[in-house]
């Protein structure tokens, strides 16, 4: 335990306390921090122009993106348990996108969903469907991110697949004898049996949505034509702050505007939100992660 305890102290407890301390100071990393009370806190909640758009986006992602991933993941999980021929191949194909490195996958999707030259809109138009602006349109950038997130649903598929195969077969047989149809069996047997896993997927999905960073940042930067990697200043959240998330706000205010005090306030808001959902995962009774006591 002890190396971990050192690590815990050095990489978690001490920095967390420092973050709390810095949140009450004016600090640019060069001059020593100056205590300024609740100034940073009131600035973040009232005047800082990036904070509330990021919160609204997070809420959108939590509701729509998480829901889409869970529903689609469950659907694919159900499908895979019913496929009899070539099941191994199908499972591998469904799983692979989950492995694609986020930067690579995002770059690929910005290209694929490029309204001017991307193959997706080419196909949509050929099929006579509307071809949206995706990452270049503030109304469509979050749906585009959702498509990207749903594409990488392989982790949920595996978790749901394992849960579905653990549902006692006898219950289905009994229901079938009672004349229950496919929907009734799903509604009254499958769903109750796997509901803890659905809840687990929702809560971990929400925690991931709070931390959503690489994909929206890269999508915004690439769609806006910002030259990557150069460390140049850029307005995050292109287009029109629609892809801005809280972690990006921390980066922007801390590492681009060197206002560490304000960045620490946003970091603590992020901390509070994540820990609230983590607590849901770990409640002593009915917690989703057993602690074995």
């Amino acid at each position, binding site marked *: *335990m002890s190396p971990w305890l050192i690590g815990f102290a050095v990489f*978690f407890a001490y920095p967390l306390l420092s973050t709390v301390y810095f949140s009450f100071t004016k600090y640019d990393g060069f001059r020593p921090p100056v205590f300024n009370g609740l100034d940073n806190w009131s600035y973040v909640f009232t005047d800082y122009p990036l904070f509330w758009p990021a919160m609204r986006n997070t809420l959108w992602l939590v509701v729509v993106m998480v829901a889409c991933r869970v529903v689609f993941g469950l659907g694919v999980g159900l499908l895979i348990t019913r496929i009899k021929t070539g099941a191994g191949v199908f499972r591998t194909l469904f799983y692979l996108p989950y*492995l694609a490195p986020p*930067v690579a996958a995002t770059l690929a999707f910005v290209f694929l969903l490029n309204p001017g030259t991307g193959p997706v809109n080419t196909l949509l138009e050929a099929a006579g469907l509307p071809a949206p602006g995706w990452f270049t349109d503030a109304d469509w950038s979050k749906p585009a991110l959702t498509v990207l997130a749903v*594409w990488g649903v392989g982790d949920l598929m*595996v978790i749901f697949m394992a849960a579905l195969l653990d549902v006692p077969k006898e219950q289905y047989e009994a229901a079938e004898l009672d004349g229950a149809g496919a929907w009734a069996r799903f509604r009254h047997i499958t769903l109750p049996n796997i509901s803890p896993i659905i809840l*687990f997927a929702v809560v971990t999905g929400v*925690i991931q949505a709070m931390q959503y960073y690489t994909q929206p940042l890269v999508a915004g930067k690439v769609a806006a034509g910002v030259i990557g990697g150069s460390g140049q200043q850029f307005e995050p959240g292109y287009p029109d702050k629609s892809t801005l998330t809280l972690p990006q706000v921390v*980066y922007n205010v801390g590492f681009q505007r060197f206002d560490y005090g304000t960045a620490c306030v946003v*970091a603590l808001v992020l901390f509070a939100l994540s820990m609230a959902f983590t607590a849901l995962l770990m409640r002593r009774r009915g917690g989703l992660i057993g602690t074995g006591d």
Partner: protein
Amino acid sequence: MAQLTDTTAPAAPRTSGAAAGTAGPRRGGVAGRRALLHWIGVHALGVAAALFFVLPFVFLFLTSLMSDQQALTRDLVPDTWEWGNYAKVWNTPGFLTWWRNTLLYAGLGTLLTVVSSVPVAYALAKFRFRGRRLSLLLVIAMMMLPPQVVVIPMYLFWAKQLDLSGTLWPLIVPMAFGDAFSIFLLRQFLLTIPDEYLDAARVDGCGELRTLLRVVLPMAKPGIAAVALFQFFSAWNDYFGPQIYASDNPAAWTLSYGLESFKGAHHTNWNLTMAATVLVMAPVIVLFFFAQKAFVEGVTLTGVKG
């Protein structure tokens, strides 16, 4: 547990419904036709889903083989297959350095994580001590903690106090102190090893260290493999860490971080960008085919067993 690679003994189809494979003697006529329709419907859906998952890879690969000009058109298939794009990407200044940095970060980091996380996971899974529950709660809380929460003090520590920004050290060194996700995953795995094995070893006179090394480790190989893979990929995919610590020094960039600059360096050369993307994805996919089982086991452990 259902496994992705289980080709020799397919997971028993415990779901009900008129499954084609279960049509026994009592099923004929109408029931048989229903089973066939069910089979066709399920597999048609499967193919549709497979297209959704696979087509992005296909378009990505086809674009990587187009000429500069054609990549800017709406064409889907290359006119001339420019395999040289891959050589161009490979020979881009910096690309090999980023490759080496990524291997160093992912390889050394994975090794350090495994060595430091196994004893902690072992203690959490198999020992009863004061504060065990609290320790586990802290591990889970750390696992769920967004890295941005502590990044400012951490950055100040590495950059201002140790003057190590622009190097890989701030990314690698913390991994020598145990990684919360790895500890949790390994603990989940070690819980499945019966205590009787450990007791037997102790009765035979094994000390704790020997029990861990000789009895637990060999049995924990699949769990360790899963943790190692996850850790390798999380370092391979990491964007935030290199952005914070290495952004001002291209010699310390990793592939994930450098990849995006690639697009910038070549403006809208989508063909080269997509070729670079393929080169960054390829090792992950190749590694997956060698270690599917460990991977899927890991994903399942995080979600199902508690």
